[in-house]
């Protein structure tokens, strides 16, 4: 397959381009809240984001990749002309990358996930008409875009109410923190561990059945909980005598949790978003390598790693600027609020990613922040942004689809 081999380099390049875009823009939002509350310095935020993204991409990235790459477009239609699938995936990547770059330039809140879904749907339409699209799958994905911010919002609302009732509003915040903070640490560690173990580590050939994964997760959660308890006791002994105002101490404690959740967000983002960049590449590569469309495309760990690295490069080259800008602006967000929003976001994104639904981390985070606001936790939220986001939702998929159609047509002519 001569044309296929020629496709290899541009396909990987386009995948990296999309990965770079994800790193440059998407990742910034989750880290910016930590920088804004003072929990992380800019340099550390960039480092943590890059490391956790790569880890997430490699360890937990595989499932979503299947969905975007295979779920939306019926690949069986390409059996007769496998190279067309490769061209199509390349077209989808280029269209998504271009739109992302343009949107970023215009300051539009556009989702990389939505773009890539639009792109894949676009060339699918050209190739096989309306029948080529797995509409059920497509609608499922669209529904998840609406449901995921809601889920993030509800979760963040609940977490913040819990923190507020049990810790911030307690008669003795120090003691309350001693009692309830370890619960949060436990929940967080257990969920992270569970999602890591239960489905995530297939790439390392470490697959746990649900039962044992649950056991290990609970154990790890318990350990983290004990460790948290010890650290809180030490902090209380050191600060409570000098610090009469409980809020400052509580917020300082939440900063540690926020760093953990920020890493958790970055991890789940890596797991979720790497699919956007790598999914189409995997599809194209399998065609190039095998010369036919296989039923199940194996996404190799090296490909996920390449996607993760692309994201990391995006963070390093451009993302830090975005983090700095946003972090500077969201200083009203205290650590307890930031923690609630990020915890809600990370959990939602991880669950969606495990269900095979590509969701936009930023949109979930927006939902989560609004959720905390509903619990009277935010000084001022500009809800006009939500309509901007809705507009961007409506516009992104058709535009990228049209763009992908155009590029695909061009490829076919050439």
């Amino acid at each position, binding site marked *: 397959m001569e044309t296929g081999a020629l496709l290899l380099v541009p396909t990987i390049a386009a995948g990296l381009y999309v990965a770079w875009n994800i790193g440059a*823009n998407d990742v*910034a939002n989750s880290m910016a809240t930590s920088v804004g509350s003072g929990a992380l310095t800019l340099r550390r935020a960039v480092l943590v984001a890059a490391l956790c993204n790569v880890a997430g991409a490699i360890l937990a990235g595989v499932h979503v990749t299947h969905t975007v790459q295979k779920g939306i477009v019926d690949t069986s239609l390409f059996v007769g002309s496998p190279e067309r699938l490769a061209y199509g995936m390349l077209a989808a990547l280029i269209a998504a990358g271009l739109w992302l770059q343009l949107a970023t330039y215009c300051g539009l809140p556009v989702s990389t996930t939505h773009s890539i879904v639009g792109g894949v749907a676009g060339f699918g339409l050209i190739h096989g008409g309306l029948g080529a699209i797995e509409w059920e799958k497509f609608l499922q994905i669209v529904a998840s875009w609406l449901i995921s911010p809601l889920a993030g919002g509800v979760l963040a609302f609940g977490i913040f109410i819990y923190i507020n009732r049990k810790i911030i509003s307690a008669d003795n915040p120090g003691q309350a923190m001693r009692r309830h903070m370890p619960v949060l640490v436990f929940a967080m560690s257990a969920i992270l561990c569970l999602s890591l173990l239960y489905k995530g580590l297939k790439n390392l050939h470490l697959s746990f059945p649900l039962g044992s994964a649950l056991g290990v997760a609970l154990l790890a959660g318990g350990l983290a909980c004990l460790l948290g308890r010890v650290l809180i006791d030490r902090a209380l002994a050191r600060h409570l005598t000098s610090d009469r105002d409980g809020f400052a101490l509580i917020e300082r404690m939440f900063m540690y949790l926020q760093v953990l959740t920020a890493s958790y967000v970055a991890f789940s983002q890596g797991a979720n978003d790497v699919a956007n960049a790598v999914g189409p590449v995997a599809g194209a590569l399998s065609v190039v390598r095998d010369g036919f469309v296989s039923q199940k495309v194996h996404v190799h760990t090296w490909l996920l790693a390449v996607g993760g690295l692309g994201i990391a490069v995006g963070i390093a080259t451009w993302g830090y600027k975005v983090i700095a800008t946003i972090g500077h602006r969201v200083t009203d967000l205290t650590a307890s609020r930031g923690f609630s929003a990020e915890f809600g976001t990370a959990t939602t994104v991880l669950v969606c990613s495990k269900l095979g639904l590509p969701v936009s981390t930023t949109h979930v985070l927006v939902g989560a922040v609004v959720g905390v606001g509903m619990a*009277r936790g935010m000084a001022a*939220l*500009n809800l006009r*942004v939500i309509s901007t*986001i809705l507009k961007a939702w409506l516009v992104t998929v058709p535009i990228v689809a049209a763009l992908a159609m155009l590029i695909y047509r061009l490829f076919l002519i050439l």
Partner: protein
Amino acid sequence: MRGILGLFGKSPFGALQNHMEKVKECINLIEPMMEALFAEDFDEVKRIAKEVMKLEHDADEVKNSIRDHLPKSLFLPVDRRDLLVLLSAQDDLADYVEDLGVIFTLRRTKVPEALRQPMSTFVASVLRVFGKSVELIDQLDELLEASFGGPESEKVMQMIQEVERLEWEADKRQYKVAQELYAQEGKVSILDIMVLVEALQKLGQIANSAESIGKQVRLFISK
């Protein structure tokens, strides 16, 4: 994707405190103005009245910028209208001090000897109401941190009750001064009495507005 950047609106609570700072600068000039009036140093009264006008103008600018930054799309932890009413109450305070300055510069009003002591204590009690309402506004940060609930809100509730008690005391003092003032019938110029009646009313309104700040903060908590 910078969508989230736009999500964070400008918090009006810090600006509300800035506005209260400006109002406080106005209020702080009441006592020097009264002293100048008692000393019948009318040039000094005029100078202070002018300074109040300038400060009131500054407060107005802060007020307008707060209003400009409170579009309906802004989602706040308190009712937007309650917040605007609170701002108006704060703004009234500065307006009343300005009015007081104008009243005293209309003519060379002489304050009868017998009235000076009760009037000073009345002014002091009005300033106490105001001082407590400033503390209330200073607590907005902590209230926000506690999401307007918990022990912090109870603490603020007690402060609000204290404001109400102080205002009631100021009312009683105002009644006494008024009695004393009307007792001057025939001894001093009727125009002096008229000007002083008006001044007493303005001072009473200052206490009332300070109290209504408490009422609005109460609505914040009970939302």
